[in-house]
């Protein structure tokens, strides 16, 4: 299990291969990469604030929960903070399990928790100014499916 919080860019493909290299019993690997979208060509930057100390702790807890719940062989979370440009990778998760359903479910669980429970806050900077990204009810609702 590996959890990384950093300002630097990372290489999703290289991270996926590094993640997969050590696997022994897993038939299924799922990855998710989040990218700073720039649909209307106006995004100058995305600023991501985190809570040093709590952020890594929260990510480790989320990853540990996923490892246990789906008997994963491995899990990876990389999340950037600081100032990102358009079309850059924001974050990535990867999961490895014996079967595909567990790998998919665990990756979605990680994403749902990252969206609403990991202490990160995004601000979009355009020519017209900067504004905090609003949390979406749909993201909060997504968590209910993981509550037994």
């Amino acid at each position, binding site marked *: 299990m590996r959890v990384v919080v950093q300002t630097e860019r990372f290489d999703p493909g290289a991270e996926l291969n590094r993640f997969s290299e050590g696997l022994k019993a897993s038939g299924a690997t799922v990855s998710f990469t*989040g990218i700073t979208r720039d649909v209307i060509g106006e995004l100058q930057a995305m600023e*991501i*604030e985190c*809570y040093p*100390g*709590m952020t890594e*702790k*929260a990510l480790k807890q989320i990853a540990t929960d996923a490892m246990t719940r789906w008997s994963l062989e491995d899990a990876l979370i990389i*999340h950037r903070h600081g100032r990102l440009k358009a079309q850059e990778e*924001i*974050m990535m998760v990867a999961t490895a399990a014996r079967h595909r359903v567990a790998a998919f479910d665990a990756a979605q669980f990680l*994403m749902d928790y*990252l*969206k*609403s*429970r*990991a*202490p*990160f*806050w*995004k*601000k979009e900077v355009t020519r017209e100014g900067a504004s*905090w*990204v*609003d*949390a979406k009810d749909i993201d*909060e609702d997504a968590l209910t499916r993981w509550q037994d």
Partner: protein
Amino acid sequence: MIDVLYFAWVRERIGVPKEAVDTKASTVMELVEELRSREERYALAFSDLNSMRVAVDQDLTDFDAPLSGAREVAFFPPMTGG
């Protein structure tokens, strides 16, 4: 003394990322009331608690949570990671 941290627009409204607060508040809500009564910028930042989250000693909790022994309280908007 408790370290009080602010993030995102809460930080911007309060004007500082962190401050040490001398308080006898026994719950998060009591601390919020104390801060609200201090200055307008606090009253403004804490005007809608539905759009605010709180962590005590780096664990997410709610506004009813006790503060006994707490060293660090953080206030911030709903998270938008991922």
